[in-house]
């Protein structure tokens, strides 16, 4: 499914918050300064930057790599472009558009331009939602998947592709990372 078709469909599906494609293109030209150079394949720049920002907040860079180091947002753009089926695309695009529109409505500014405290508060609120099927929970899952199966993400854990021996019962302290292989 082409991106424009999806935008049209989701504009109908999510009444009131859909944005027409041409208007979308127009908005892209005068957005905030971007924090990433990646040119998305499927998502609009505004959608992509939103996903990028969410991923950074969920998995920030610390002394271990963050979402940006693991190219999580480009991976999610790729999932939209080539991995998801049509139904999922419509569902997730609608979810993302709602996420963005709700933010605008509430804070009077886009999510990427919101101050960090409010960004976190907004995400925490969605994170508390008990609906396992919510868009945010799905996106959180994609972010975790994109990060922890990437090379930097796997190597941030205890990556042991060829363990040699197997020890059934070892003692670990609270700092021990997941021992992960290539399976």
């Amino acid at each position, binding site marked *: 499914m082409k991106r424009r078709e999806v935008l049209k469909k989701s504009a109908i599906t999510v009444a009131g918050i859909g944005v027409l494609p041409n208007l979308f293109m127009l908005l892209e030209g005068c957005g905030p300064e971007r924090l990433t150079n990646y040119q998305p394949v499927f998502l609009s720049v505004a959608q992509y930057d939103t996903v990028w920002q969410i991923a950074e907040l*969920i998995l920030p860079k610390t002394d271990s790599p963050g979402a940006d180091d693991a190219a999580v947002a480009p991976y999610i753009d790729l999932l939209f472009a080539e991995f998801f089926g049509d139904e999922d695309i419509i569902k997730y695009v609608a979810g993302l558009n709602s996420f963005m529109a709700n933010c605008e409505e509430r804070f009077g500014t886009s999510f990427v331009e919101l101050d960090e405290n409010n960004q976190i508060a907004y995400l925490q609120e969605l994170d508390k939602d008990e609906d396992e099927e919510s868009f945010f929970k799905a996106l959180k899952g994609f972010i975790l998947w994109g990060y922890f199966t990437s090379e930097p993400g796997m190597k941030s854990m205890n990556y042991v592709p060829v363990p040699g021996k197997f020890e059934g019962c070892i003692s670990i302290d609270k700092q021990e990372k997941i021992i992960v292989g290539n399976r």
Partner: protein
Amino acid sequence: MWVTVKYEKMQTNNFDAIVIGSGMSGGWAAKELTEKGLKTLVLERGRQVEHLKDYPTTNMAPWEFKFRKQLTKETKEEYPIQKNVYAFNEATKHFWASDKKHPYTHPENKPFRWLKAFQTGGKSLLWYRQSYRLSEIDFEANAKDGYGVDWPVRYKDIAPWYDYVENYIGVSGSNEGLRQLPDGKFLPPMEMNCVEKYFKDSIKENFDGRVMTIGRTAHVTVRHNNRGPCMHRNMCETGCPFSAYFSSVSVTLPAAQLTGNMTFKPYSIVHSIIFDEKQGKATGVRVIDAQTKETTEYYAKIVFLCASTLPSTQILLNSTSSRFPNGIGNSSGMIGHHLMDHYYVGITATVDGFEDGYYNGHRPNGIYIPRFENVDTKNPDFVRGYGFQGSAFREGWSRGTKVEGLGAVFKEEMSKPGPWIMDLGAYGECLPYYDNKVELHPELKDEWGIPLLHISCELHENEHKIIKASTEKGVEMMEEAGFKNIVPGDPKDWIFGDGIHEMGTARMGRDPKTSVLNQWNACHDVPNLFITDGSFMTSSGCQNPSLTYMAFTARAANYAVEELKKGNF
């Protein structure tokens, strides 16, 4: 490792023996027959897979796959059936047969998932490697409770062949002295983890007659016959660069090649077995080249049919002659009937505590709780029994969608092992029912002109009672151990075929009127035609069957060679 003998270079179409199929059983037939000096043609319907060379994904990390091993849309379209298997992913899909190319039919109300591997090595490349002996209880079962016909074999007949196969392939495990699960010739067992050890002790303490042991698995845990040892990567289904688990590709076919007596021919689809009415014997096979569709006949003194249960049945039913209008060896009319599989229901639970316990390495194995019902006591609700497989593990980062959190602390937490989970799966015995059958489709054919299979199977009352009882008993053991959030799976998640243990369509028996094969896996009707894949199984037991196929194949091959030497074929 071995060289394909191209058809152009073949000197002759005449051999001492023909083996149809190169998987679990075919590999063993090839090894035994060639080692006894027989010039043997091995026919494989799919492509050649050479050990080490043809394991393209075995050293790939998840991030090297476009979608990190998750299935692409194209893969899902090509493999709508196979994609449901636990062992199917982007790293293993090349070892599974395309559903698009290999269709079959079933009644709408009786779904069947035919999981198949059509290349050298067959499913021996993909199996879960659990290796359990049948016991005297299993061989006597049909005679005692009247379901099915009596096995013409008892445990003492096959025990030395179990020894022989285990010694050769290398099976790691622990002897427990159980009459329902005979001991074997084991390499050192893999270790249980902390929670499994705790669960084992809890079961021992609380339930008489129930035992938990480590899975008996065809992995060499120490160096064995120039193979291994296992490096505990748990990447087995991609092919093992250390030759540490048994497959025909890594073990039996190279052994056959080494004798100089094997001619291996891939892309060779057997259309039918040739029956000579005057001699009353099978004299060869008709082969269709999978690529060019050219047909050729090959001849031999003995034929081993090891194409795996469903394809073997297809070949038998398609081998018609005036003597056998319903398929070669089918004077009993039993071929295609009594199809069995193992059904299962999973139970999952969380385990509190053990936060400082972990495991190091990726164990390609789990635990086993052998059958305990209808062993020393009698359950009035059902005959036969079930066993449990399972494992305990600590949750990984994927738990992150179920827990609240975001930011630096959350990231750190998710990269550490999470709470413990214990999974148990009950695997039940399926009785042999005449109505559970596979037949040739009256009209539809595959691209080689061979009639498609129409498969019609369902579980009956005894199986449903076993599912109910096994779920209750599994939950009971977990409750007694203090596990929490115990959730049994939905038995409807299992579809006939999902056990990948399809068997029984050319059963052994004492009476040629009610069975297809005699005690040596030879056709009652056609003494030089041997069938040693799962089709010979007279009952299913509840144990994983591959070890039994291997043992019966080795035994049948040795019998066949002796008879051949006596001039009986």
